[in-house]
Structure formats: C-alpha cells, structure tokens
C-alpha cells in the first residue's frame, strides 16, 4: 500500500520582473552585438523531475545539475541568435507519481510559454510527460531509456542509449568475466525493470549468453534472501539485477551474506549513483554496471563533474550529467531556430548534428537525431565501481580505466 499524492502549484509571477531584468542584462552584456530591437526575453525551459517520493534521490541530483547547466549556458552568453536571451529553468516536482506527472506537465506547459522540456528519467513518468508534450506540441528531451518513447512520436527526443542497447552491453560485458557466462536476471516488476529485462532475454542468444534464471521480483520487497537463494540454486556465474537503488542495496548485501561468489552487473538506475556506494560501501567495489553517461567520458564531462562536485559534494552521475548535455542540445537548437516557438525548436532539434562541446557529451561524442527521435550514435558505456567512483570500462573505445577482475 503506497500513499503518495499531490497537487500542482500555481505559476510564479516572476515573468514581468524577469523581462525587465533580462532586458537590462542583455543590453549591458551585449552592447556590441546588434540587438533585434527588442529586450531579450528569457527562454523558458521546463524541467520535470521527482524530488520527492520513491525516486527522490536521483531527482534531487538531477535538479542540481539542471540548474548548473542553465547557469553554464547563460554564463557563456545565453542564446546569441535571440539577443543573448537567458535560459530560464521552470522546475516542477513530479513526486514519483504518474498522475502528478500528467498534471504537472500540463500545468507547466499551459502556465508558461515553454520552448522545450527535459525530464523525468523514470520510464513510467516520462511516458506520460511525453504524451502530454506530443499533444501540446512542445518538444521533450529525455534520458529515459524506454524504447516506447521512440514509437509514434514527433516531439520526443532521446539522445542516449535505449533499453535494448543497455541490455546488449550488459550481455557483452558478461563475456568479459567468463567465457561461458551463465546469467541470472532479476528485475523489479515495474516499467523500468520489465523493459530492460525483456531486452536482455531477446538478445542473449544472439550474444552467446545463456540465461539460466529470469525472475521479476516485487519492487520494494522486505527480504532478498529467497530471491538470492534461487540465484544460487540456478548455478549462475553472473547476476544481472535491474533495480532501483533500495532494492539493489538489499540484493548486494544479501549476496554477501549468502556467501555467494558471483559477478554482479547492476545495470543502470540505482546502481550508478553515489548513494549506492554510500549505502553499501566496499561491497560495491568491482561491481559492474551500464550507464548512458559517465563523467570520465571527455574533458567537458570532467569539467562539469568538477563543478557539480563542488556544489553537491558528490560525483556527477549518469542522469544528472546527461541532462547537462541535453540542456546544451536545447541551447544549440534554440540558437539555430532563432525563435522560442516550441515547434521551431523541435524542427531545429531534428536537424541537430554535433560532435563537440558540452552538447556532445555522450558516449561516442556525437549526437544526431534520426528516426523516432533516437540518437543515431547513441550507445551506453559499461562502468565499474573503482575506489568509490565510477570508471568507464567498456567498450574499448570508451574505456578510461582498466576493468578490474575479481
């Protein structure tokens, strides 16, 4: 029995003040740049993340990164083709709840003149937000890996790896530790777990990996012992757990308790955030995962990581880092569209093709949107916990550190 609930808040009345401030700033900072004869209105970017509820830990980090990203864009001069217009972040807490997401997305769009939205990271929430954006014709860019987001939509953009790609990477990584990997797959029984695990099941034969156990479990369970018991009985030599943070903690600790010597690949989600290490400590060392973004990918990523670390005391994890890149992608689109009109921004996003700068912070260093809003260069990176931080270890082109075999 879960009991979250919530209602939307009315919009702030800061727009008038911002208009004036924006105008003054634009005039002062860009005296040399020929203005178009109007004060540069800020460009509204909506950001939807769960800051409360079961996904709060990731959401809070995302919001911090979102603010950092907007500051970075603004400090670099804002959107020059709009007279140096600053990005204005309009945040909303979706409370880890599907209904609230629906209402909040709606409210954000109708109460503010939004040019674009980024958000949600959680599959179920993003699907809803995307539905609302599609109907309202506002582009949404997201790090969520759900493959459903690329079907039948024209305003949804996903610059990072898809769930099916994550699955493939995970399978390939299992071959790094063993010639004949026998994998036990356990996954939480909500959208994230089922989507990713399906990908694993489908691709395992093609990758030459044998899946000896394939079990959904109740997210938020009290006791991982029966589950790990089953894993032990299956004779697997690798464990893939598709879980959010809290379950992962329980699982990892139980594996230790059972005395089970098994390689764990925690996939993505709760596995690749600082909180995981905080809770399981040394047990995390050597554990592998897959992420859609990591801070050691490029110099730009490291720079952002350093700044984020200064502000929050923790390293920049995948969703948070990813959305910094997304903010810059939006800035790039705005620059080319030279308009705040969401449809024009969407059109500009369709033509996005970059290979440098903060907007290109993605595995492989290139972003270009193809069919269904997918990044044609999108792929995940394999990561490993090393000394309390995440190091990219797979594939070879993206590895920044050697894989530690235990």
């Amino acid at each position, binding site marked *: 029995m879960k009991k979250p609930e919530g209602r939307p808040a009315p919009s702030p009345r800061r727009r008038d003040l911002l208009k004036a401030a924006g105008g003054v700033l634009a005039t002062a900072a860009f005296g040399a740049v020929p203005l178009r004869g109007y004060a540069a209105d800020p460009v509204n970017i909506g950001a939807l993340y769960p800051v409360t509820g079961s996904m709060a830990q990731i959401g809070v980090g995302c919001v911090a990164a979102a603010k950092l990203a907007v500051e970075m864009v603004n400090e670099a001069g804002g959107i020059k083709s709009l007279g140096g217009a600053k990005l204005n972040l309009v945040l909303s807490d979706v409370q880890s709840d599907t209904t609230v997401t629906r209402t909040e997305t709606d409210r954000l769009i109708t109460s503010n003149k939004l040019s674009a939205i980024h958000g949600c990271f959680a599959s179920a929430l993003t699907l809803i937000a995307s539905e609302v954006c599609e109907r309202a014709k506002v582009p949404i860019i997201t790090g969520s890996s759900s493959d459903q987001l690329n079907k039948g939509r024209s305003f949804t953009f996903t610059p990072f790896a898809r769930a099916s790609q994550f699955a493939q990477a995970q399978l390939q990584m299992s071959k790094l530790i063993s010639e004949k990997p026998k994998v036990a797959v356990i996954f939480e029984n909500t959208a994230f777990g089922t989507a990713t695990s399906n990908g694993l099941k489908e691709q395992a034969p093609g990758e030459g990996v044998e899946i000896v156990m394939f079990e959904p479990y109740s997210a938020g369970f009290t006791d991982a*012992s*029966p589950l790990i018991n089953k894993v032990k009985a299956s004779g697997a030599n690798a464990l893939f757990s598709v879980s959010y*943070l809290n379950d992962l903690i329980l699982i990892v600790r139980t594996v230790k308790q059972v005395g089970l010597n098994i390689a764990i690949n925690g996939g993505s989600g709760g596995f690749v955030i600082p909180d995981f290490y905080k809770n399981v400590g040394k047990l995390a060392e050597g554990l592998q995962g897959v992420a859609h973004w990591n801070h050691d990918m490029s110099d730009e990523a490291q720079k952002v990581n350093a700044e984020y670390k200064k502000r929050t005391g923790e390293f920049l994890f995948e969703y948070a880092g990813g959305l910094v890149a997304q903010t810059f992608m939006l800035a790039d689109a705005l620059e080319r569209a030279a308009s705040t009109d969401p449809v024009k921004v969407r059109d500009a996003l369709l033509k996005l093709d970059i290979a440098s700068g903060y907007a290109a912070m993605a595995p492989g260093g290139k972003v270009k949107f193809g069919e269904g809003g997918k990044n044609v260069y999108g792929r995940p990176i394999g990561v490993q916990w090393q000394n309390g931080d995440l190091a990219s270890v797979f594939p070879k082109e993206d590895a920044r550190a050697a894989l530690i075999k235990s």
Partner: protein
Amino acid sequence: MLETIAQAVINGLLIGGIYALVSIGVTLIFGVVKIVNFAQGEFVMIGMYISFFLATQLGVDPIVSLLVTMPVLFCVGMLVQHFLIRRVLGLNDLPQIFLTFALSLLVLNLALMLLTANYRTVHTWYSDEALHFAGLYVPVAKLAAFVLAMVLSALLWVFLHTTDLGKAMRAASQNRDVAQLMGINPNRVFAVALGIALALAGAAGSLLMPFYPAYPMVGQVFVLMAFVAVVLGTLGNVVGALVASLLMGVAESLGIQFVGADSGLIVVFAMLLLTLAVRPSGLAGGRRR
C-alpha cells in the same frame, strides 16, 4: 532441492519473527480494546527512525536501542489511548476504523514531510554476516531479530498469564462488562494494551534496522502482513498471531522460491482469501467476528 527448501523455510521463519512482533501488537489491541489499529506499521517506522538516529548520532547499536524505543513507544501508546482511542470507544465502526486510519496517514505523511523519502540504513558489524552450516546460511542480524522477537513474545505470554494486570487484560478481552463488574478499570487496561502493542512495534523497528532501510512507507509493508496474520491466527489470539506470522513468512518465502520472485505477496493474499472463504474465524476458530 531439500537444501533449497530448508533455506527457504529458514528465511521465512526469520522474517516471520518480525511479522509476529507487529501482528501480536495488532491482535492484542483488537482483543482487548476491540479496535483495529491501522497505524501499527507507522509505529514500527517510528521505532526504526529512532534507532536510526540513535545509531548515527550516538553510535548506539540498533538492537541495544530496543531499550529506548520500547519505553518511548509504550508511552506513545498510552497517549494515543488517552487522547484518541478513548474518544471512539463504544461508537460504531466508522469512527473506530477511520480514526486509526487517519492516524496512520498522519504519521506516515508527517514522516514524509519532516524526514523526506530517502532511505536510511544502518550498517553494523554484523549486518552482512551469516552463520554457515550444512550448506545453509543464517544471517546474523535476522537471527538476532528472530530470537529477540521470540523472547519478547514469550515475555508477553508470561505477563498475560501470570500477572494481575495481564489477567485483567485477558478478562477484559473476553468480556468487558463482566470484567468491569469485577472492578477492572477498562481505561487503565486499554492504556497498557496500547502501550505494550506499540512497544512491540517499536521493538520490531529496532530489530529491523540492521538489515532493512527506514523510510516513511516502510510500515505499510509490515502492517499488511500483520493484518493477514491476525485474521489467520484468529482475531485477538496472541499465540495465533505468532504462529500465523511464522507460517506466513514461510509461505511467502516458499512462494518466492517456487512460484515466482514477485509472487510472495500473492501467495500470502491467497492464504488470506482462502481462509476467509473456508474458515473466516481463523485457524484457532471459535471466536466471534
């Protein structure tokens, strides 16, 4: 195969001990005060948070913090009885059900507001340790919790059967009017019943901390199991609740093992619904309602 079953049974029994602590509290309140405490899980949650803060701020081991959580929650129980429960005694179902339900909502959401939804864990030196024998393993933290849960249950049983106050409670639970005629003060008895029940909930919370995270919604999981155990074990029957809890823990564990890892709850519910269909008065039968 045998090993797998044995391990599943062990796992089930261990967690069943915790369910027992929670469900005994619920059944005690129902037996004596005739009210279902929907908020029992939230008091487990409070016990967990108290232990958490004692552990992180003062370095007190969660199991040792029992010595704090139990008395504190005992007092809370008495306050709840005095200020809330007393007001709805003798009224019909609606106020009785929804008062404790509202209390449950209130405590849960206050915790959400004040403590945030983040999971808090305590890592003790024995959190990840386990005893290994005959190819089976028994996690130390859970074993300690189970043993203490049984000890507390035994102490409760002794209290109910040997002390005057305990006997008064049993009398009031069997027949309130006659008990009153015999000079037993119902309010005092109720207050103690609430106190004990909540103390047990607090104990459950402390015992859970070494191996389970604290977060506002955690009580919900345990209270659901508790309710099923109470119905199964016959309403008001303390021993019944204990046995039923252990059975349910084992059933859940076996269900996860052999039906599917996401089927633990379904198995438990199936047990509940089956009992309702076949023997609504529970395994010990015979009691009204």
